[in-house]
């Protein structure tokens, strides 16, 4: 896949504070998750990509276009859903979305047609003639999504799209993001501090901490890399079982309460564990593959020291 975003030693400085410290990486998945605790620099990174902040050093490229020299072109390729409320309260949904489409360069007729389509797409078809000020929080989030996609961008940046949504509205938003992803007509950058949102939608994840990259990986690869991590609960001679498994090349750790955490060696199958346990008359009460969740990845990343590079 062609890279969507390439960061090349990107640094952003406000006054004497370094907000982004020379970020370097290449992101190319269909849906990219941007994670990090509050103040990690997620929104600053997005705003820099959009040309709102000038990089103090390095640069970034969106679809190969430098954000320093081709800002206008980059902006013509992007749709952005900001985190904060950003809708003009006294305009109707359809006229606001239409105006935004026209400002992106669509002719008036095409803008009107696409404004209706976008509002129907996000589920605001029936409310499209109502004033934006009368929309509920969930509706306003959907309207923000509609303005981000109305002009048919190649990349949509969603900054905390599920902020303040109730579970049903959150589910609707996530479903929409997944649907957009499935069309394969656009790439998505999802910035969130909600790990579940990112886990449900994204293929690639970039984790920031204090303005530096602390983790960058393909989520699927990350998950499959942990397929051989097994947790079991045994009754009987657990130490003997662990020793026997270690002799077969497994890495084992006693977790207390009869639990053993282990990484299976190459060639060893689950049935081999059952066989060894039976030979030693140890009862296996529970056996789980333990895949790393995004939460594990995130927490591990948070323990990482920040040096700006992977």
């Amino acid at each position: 896949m062609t890279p969507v975003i390439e960061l090349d030693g990107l640094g952003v400085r406000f006054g004497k504070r370094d907000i982004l410290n020379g970020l370097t990486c290449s992101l190319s998945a269909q849906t990219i998750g941007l994670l990090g605790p509050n103040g990690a620099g997620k929104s600053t990174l997005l705003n820099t990509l959009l040309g709102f902040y000038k990089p103090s050093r390095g640069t970034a490229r969106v679809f190969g276009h430098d954000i320093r020299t081709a800002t206008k072109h980059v902006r013509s390729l992007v749709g952005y859903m900001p985190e904060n409320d950003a809708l003009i309260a006294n305009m109707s949904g359809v006229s606001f979305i239409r105006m935004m489409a026209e400002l992106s360069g669509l002719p008036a007729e095409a803008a009107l047609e696409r404004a209706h389509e976008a509002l129907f797409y996000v589920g605001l078809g029936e409310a499209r003639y109502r004033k934006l000020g009368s929309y509920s929080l969930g509706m306003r989030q959907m309207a923000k999504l509609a303005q981000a996609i109305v002009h048919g961008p190649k990349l949509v940046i969603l900054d905390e799209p599920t902020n303040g949504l109730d579970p049903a509205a959150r589910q609707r938003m996530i479903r929409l993001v997944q649907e957009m992803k499935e069309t394969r007509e656009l790439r998505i950058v999802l910035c969130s501090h909600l790990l579940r949102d990112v886990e449900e939608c994204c293929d690639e994840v970039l984790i920031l901490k204090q303005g530096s990259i602390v983790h960058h990986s393909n989520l699927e690869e990350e998950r499959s890399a942990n397929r051989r991590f097994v947790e079991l609960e045994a009754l009987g001679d657990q130490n003997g079982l662990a020793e026997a498994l270690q002799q077969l090349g497994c890495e084992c750790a006693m977790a207390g309460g009869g639990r053993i955490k282990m990484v299976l060696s190459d060639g060893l199958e689950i049935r081999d564990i059952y066989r060894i346990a039976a030979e030693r008359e140890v009862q296996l009460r529970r056996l789980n593959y333990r895949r790393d969740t995004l939460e594990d990845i995130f927490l591990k990343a948070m323990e990482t020291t920040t040096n700006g590079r992977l």
Partner: protein
Amino acid sequence: MAVYKRTYRSYSGPATPAWSRFLILTRYASQGIFRSKFVTAMFALCFFYPLGCAIAIYLNHNSSVLSLVRVTAPKLFDIDGKFFLIYLGVQGTLSFFLTAFIGPGLVSPDMANGALPLYFYRPFSRTEYILGKLFVTARLLSFITWVPGLILFGIESSLSGTQWMSANLRLAAGVFFGAWIWILLISLIALALSAWVRWRIVAGALVLAVMFLGSGFGHALDVVLRGSKIGYFIDPGRLSTTVWEHMLGVETSATETLSATAAWIGLLAICGLCLLLLTRKVRPYEVVR
């Protein structure tokens, strides 16, 4: 009604030229203006004086009417620089009140709603944004200042002949450029204040305050400092009048007056200050350093 397949699809159709996109903002911003009956009534009121002037010019050339009112002179009044100076003064005042009402509603809603990032992440610059908003008042005020002014000039030219017209072309240029200077000045003041004060009513009151308090303080300063002309520089109205007088070739009645060059510099400084205030506020996000 067509049943749309509700799925995302990209856009691959033609795009409008980038240079004309600021007019989109003007179009949308103008739509809301005449929703207010007060603005509509005020806008209509602004045409009364030019209409009266047109009638007066016509009657001025109508000998039968003049004889009816037993006027022996060939004309009731002269159409000269002073006539157009008064015209600019009246229309300028009316246009100022109109701007004080309309101007604050142009930028402050975008600021209050935090909508600026949605404009600026598109291929749409801050300059285009300011130009688009400026054009709303510029277009509206044109209809009540230089457009009727030039129509009056045309009426007088048609009644007095081409000789009068060629001899007084300076008046047409004075009305046109004088009105534009005023339009730019008051529009920029209104936009700058509405960018800094997010509450529309307060911004409107501030626009009025800048003009009236500026005038009051300016006069007071000149009186206190005896013969000083510093007061002119905080009084946009007096600065404009000085420039208009120079453009229309009218000799001023005031004893202590500023030179036209100094008045130009004063006006440019105010416009520059307003632009500076605008560019500092009209940003997608404020950076806290």
